[in-house]
């Protein structure tokens, strides 16, 4: 499952999919931090995520912290039911800004 990055109205949209586990979390982490380092707002599309565990969550938390530290945003969009369940378990569903789709996320930032 490869990740895709595109730009939408000045925001970087990163689409993650498949199983984000201990095997893939380091790659996802690197990719998210690279995006955050570009000093643009980042939208992470989680619609195709079939599994995410504590290591995947940790990568997203680290990217959020980095973005917050740099004064840019990192928002989650179209979070799959499997992923949402895990964010809720970790009580991180209130820590991240979660939007139903990219348009809603853009409307919230513009």
């Amino acid at each position: 499952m490869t990740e895709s990055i595109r730009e939408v109205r000045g925001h970087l949209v990163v689409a993650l999919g498949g199983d984000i586990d201990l095997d893939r979390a380091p790659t996802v982490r690197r990719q998210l931090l690279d995006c955050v380092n570009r000093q643009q707002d980042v939208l992470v599309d989680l619609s195709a995520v079939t599994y995410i565990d504590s290591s995947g969550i940790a990568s997203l938390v680290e990217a959020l912290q980095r973005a917050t530290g740099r004064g840019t945003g990192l928002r989650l969009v179209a979070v799959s039911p499997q992923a949402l369940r895990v964010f809720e378990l970790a009580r991180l569903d209130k820590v991240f800004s979660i939007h139903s789709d990219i348009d809603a996320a853009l409307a919230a930032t513009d």
Partner: protein
Amino acid sequence: MNANTAEYLLELRVPARADRMVVVRDTVRSAARFCGFDERTAQDIVLAVGEACQNVILHAYEGRGGGPILLDILDDADRMILRVTDFGPAVAPTAVQPRALHDLRPGGLGTYFIHALMDSADFGRSPTGVGNVLQMTKKKDPAI
């Protein structure tokens, strides 16, 4: 624990390597369906076992790989029993505790998830004296 009336469903042995865990997850999902759990609960059980295996890879074998993970699954009348065994050095059960949730700190979530998702989770030495065992149970009818 009713382990006496429980039926052996399977015993799975895999190398403790992160890239292999997808096969463990697929096996656990299938076993959870066999025990009669719905897809959502099956996914919860998969996550708990995934976290337990991640702990074996990271802590029992400290990322060195090589060592095996043993997964035993039993089907009891009222619950599913899952045991994750490693063959790493003895760990004091008190060392394996869910940490308090710190909103923005990465890590430390695995044991918390396991306790939140399962009806019981007990860490101890293997009855054979070799290795650590995390025994988890999930009730079939949450009302019981």
